[in-house]
């Protein structure tokens, strides 16, 4: 036990103890009371004094109790501390891992009680907060510890900025919720350093303020440790968790056969991270109806000799089913294990679709032939006059065509749809055309974009093309040497794929890439512009839906969400980022069919829940702390004050007993 302010207590004692004694001697102001005779009272007093050997003590017991009470208060003023950690006030950053692997439950063999790793980490963090040093009473020079709380998975979230308010810090720790994402520490460290740096100082400058110490509560399964540069003195690692056995679905894909779209193939990989082989059932369900259950035996995990890293035992499971309708597929392993969020994976199955395309042209045999070569269910060809004669409102609302191809023609009005536009771009989509250019060669393109997948444009030459001035949000897919050649523009709920030249003015129709482009472009535009088809997501990936009316309000349902309302932005795009839990999310847009999104973990490293006791950062190893955090800096003054209060009560009791007959 240490005393933080002993001198304060001594000074107070020098003043108060003589004062109490003085008051004790002065305090008796006796009440006058008339009696018939003092004869017997004097005899009684005399007898009392003579016959009671401890009468002095009995008379002074109130003084003794008061002295004890004063002593307790004086000791409390001396600020006694149990398990004192000395040194100036420090700054700490608590980094609490809330990734998927921290959801693993550990069974305590002694208590037979299951606890979540994240809860354990939060408990230890709270003990750390309780052990923070507070500023001593009446002390001007001491500083208290300051702590910041950051919860991280793939992204860092600041729960509480630097403060010494323990209540605020503990409520911030309580507010940390489990996530199902992977864990990445670099963003958390960057955020911590940014907050720890005093305002107005350069990041690299030597600051008088001591750098904050990072306290990491994690199971050590962090994927980007190699990118971190943190000194071993600056990071204290508390490893959470014991067990490592886990069964996880680490891969899943469902697709319809190209030859027979009614036939669905489902591929899944189930991994075993335990040391023993496990026989478990794998279940396939469609819309929560079990369609198939297969028993598999998964081999045990193996440790590579060279890297000593654990590679799980895996087994591939294939299912095949015949289904013409859309639905949500779920593959779930039924073996009970520590981590629940990786026991299942979902995939959204769409009904086999066929495209309907309208070609508006004054006659382009090349384009028409190329479109006919694509697997399009319905291809209609019309002239510009016929297109202008169509009912614009019906075209915009009912949308009888998935894609409208405009070949060198400028319609009077453009109903809401998805357009592939060859030649001059239409007005009203913020694309200006200052003039025409000649003799352009394709110099650059984005082969990874789904429109240009397998499309080679290296030999394309244009005798004439339009010079395009694109808006800032346009997506340029290919460029001539002086102007963009292919661009994707989204306006007013419509999507425009601009091809800034007449194909007959180029050699492109004679290249195989032209047919591939037409196939990709109609597929991309027809199936709601590519990205909308990204319905099988990873945890943390945003749900993006385009081409919506900006005035509507959609509702999202999913794990942990119930009817959350979202609104599209002015461009008609919904971007929902709160996909922190695995499961199936559904988006309900008014007057449109329900859209489903599957959010999966599917991460081998995150499913490996075996705790890592030694972190290998860039260049150095950091071992986990041997023991759990124990309570330090326990102030004893509240107990002393309680003792003083009890004594005050005792004094009152004694006084009452003495004066009452």
């Amino acid at each position, binding site marked *: 036990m240490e005393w933080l302010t002993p001198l304060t207590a001594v000074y107070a004692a020098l003043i108060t103890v003589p004062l109490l004694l003085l008051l004790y001697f002065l305090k008796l102001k006796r*009440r*006058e009371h008339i*009696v018939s005779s003092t*004869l*017997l009272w004097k005899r*009684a*007093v005399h007898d009392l004094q003579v016959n009671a050997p401890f009468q002095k003590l009995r008379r002074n017991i109130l003084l003794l109790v008061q002295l004890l009470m004063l002593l307790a208060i004086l000791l409390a003023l001396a600020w006694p501390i149990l398990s004192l950690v000395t040194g100036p006030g420090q700054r700490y950053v608590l980094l609490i891992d809330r990734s998927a692997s921290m959801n693993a439950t550990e069974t305590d063999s002694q208590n037979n009680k299951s606890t979540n790793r994240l809860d354990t980490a939060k408990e230890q963090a709270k003990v750390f907060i309780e052990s923070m040093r507070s500023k001593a009473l009446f002390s001007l020079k001491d500083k208290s510890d300051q702590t910041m709380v950051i919860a991280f998975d793939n992204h860092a979230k600041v729960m509480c900025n630097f403060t010494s308010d323990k209540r605020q810090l503990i409520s911030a720790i309580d507010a940390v919720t489990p996530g199902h994402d992977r864990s990445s520490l670099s963003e958390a460290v960057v955020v911590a350093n940014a907050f720890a740096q005093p305002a107005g100082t350069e990041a690299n400058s030597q600051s008088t303020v001591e750098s904050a110490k990072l306290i990491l509560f994690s199971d050590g399964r962090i994927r980007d440790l190699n990118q971190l540069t943190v000194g071993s003195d600056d990071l204290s690692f508390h490893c959470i968790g014991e067990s490592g056995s886990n069964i996880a679905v680490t891969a899943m894909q469902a697709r319809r056969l190209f030859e027979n779209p009614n036939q669905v193939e489902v591929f899944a990989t189930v991994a075993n991270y335990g040391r023993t082989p496990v026989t478990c059932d794998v279940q396939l369900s469609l819309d929560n109806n079990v369609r198939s259950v297969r028993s598999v035996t998964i081999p045990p995990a193996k440790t590579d000799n060279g890297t000593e890293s654990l590679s799980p035992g895996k087994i591939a499971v294939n299912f095949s089913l015949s289904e013409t309708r859309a639905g949500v597929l779920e593959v779930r392993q039924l073996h009970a294990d520590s981590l629940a969020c990786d026991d299942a994976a979902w995939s959204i199955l769409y009904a086999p679709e066929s495209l309907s395309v309208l070609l508006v042209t004054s006659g382009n045999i090349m384009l028409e032939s190329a479109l006919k070569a694509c697997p399009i269910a319905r291809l209609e060809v019309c002239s510009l006059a016929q297109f202008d004669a169509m009912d614009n409102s019906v075209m915009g609302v009912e949308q009888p065509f998935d894609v409208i191809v405009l070949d060198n023609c400028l319609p009077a009005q453009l109903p809401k749809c998805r357009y592939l536009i060859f030649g001059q771009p239409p007005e009203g989509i913020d694309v200006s055309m200052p003039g025409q250019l000649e003799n352009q060669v394709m110099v650059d393109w984005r082969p990874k974009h789904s429109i240009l997948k397998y499309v080679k444009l290296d030999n394309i030459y244009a005798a004439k093309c339009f010079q395009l001035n694109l808006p800032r949000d346009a997506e340029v897919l290919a460029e001539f040497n002086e102007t963009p050649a292919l661009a994707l523009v989204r306006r007013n709920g419509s999507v425009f794929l601009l091809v800034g030249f007449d194909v007959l003015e180029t050699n492109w129709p004679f290249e195989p890439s032209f047919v591939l482009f037409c196939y990709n472009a109609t597929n991309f535009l027809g199936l709601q512009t590519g990205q909308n088809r990204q319905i099988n997501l990873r945890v943390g990936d945003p749900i993006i839906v385009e081409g919506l009316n900006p005035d509507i309000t959609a509702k999202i349902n999913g794990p942990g969400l119930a009817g959350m309302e979202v609104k599209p932005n002015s461009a008609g795009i919904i971007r929902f980022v709160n996909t922190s839990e695995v499961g199936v999310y559904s988006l309900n847009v008014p007057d449109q069919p329900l859209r489903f999104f599957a959010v999966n973990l599917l991460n081998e490293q995150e499913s490996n829940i075996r705790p890592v006791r030694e972190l290998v950062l860039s260049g150095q190893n950091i071992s986990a702390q041997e023991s759990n955090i124990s309570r330090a800096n326990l102030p004893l003054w509240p107990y002393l004050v309680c003792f003083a209060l009890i004594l005050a009560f005792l004094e009152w009791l004694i006084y009452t007993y*003495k004066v009452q007959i």
Partner: protein
Amino acid sequence: MSPKMTTSRKRLTDLLDPEFMNRLDSLDFLSRKIMQGKLQGERRSKRRGQSVEFADHRPYVAGDDLRFVDWNIYGRLEQLFLKLFVEEQDLTVHIVADISSSMSFGEPSKELFIKKLTAALGYVSLVNNNRLNISLFSDGIIGQLSNMRGRNYLHKMADFLLTADCDGLSHFEKTCKQLSAGRIGSGINIVLSDFLFKENYDSALRRLIGKYYDLYVIQVLSAQELSPDISGELKLVDIEDTDIAEITVSTALTKYYKRNLNAYCNELKDFCTRRGAVYVLANSADSVESLVLNYLRRIRLLR
């Protein structure tokens, strides 16, 4: 009934209920000793005199009244003998009451109790034609009514008691000296006081104990003295001499007070018993009627 009597009954009713007085009419004093009276009365005395009760014979001497010669004996023995009879004399009742300042203490006060008791005993004495002497004392005898006999003195007695106020120190020794020097004569002697005297009461009481007196000591204490109801840090002030005692009332102190009070009363009682006197402890909160009609009859002071 004369107007004078009406007035006296009225004043006396300030102290005694008429109903209580009616019950007192049937009572009379009993004396444990045969004592000499002053006038002829209804009590046997040691004297030989005129009465109907034969006592003894004695030889005739010249000058004796020939009316008392027993002629029957002369007929048989031819000698002259005189018949002697027991003389019947009156009984004297002395009531010595304390009216010092301390008697005004208590709720109800000891003063009222003593005055009522004095009036009751005096009433019994007067209606039975006993001789009554009442002496009030504090620092010596401060008032005295002597040789009252008969109902006519009721008014005077009541007036005397009601006009006396409690005042002054109590000086019992001095009082007893004055009483013994006053030759008040033999009889029943009733002393009413709280006996809480700073001086010793032994020598004073010894003066009242003797073959001429049948002594009754009635100690009157208030309820507040018998069982004090006080608490806290107190400065006790003596009502008579303003003597001060500083006390912190505690259970232990109260216990010692009660023990001392008991010891004091028992000491007084032993003193009286050893000397043939009768000791009575009375609580001023109790009723005088009950004391007179029950207890004093039980100890055979009254019948």
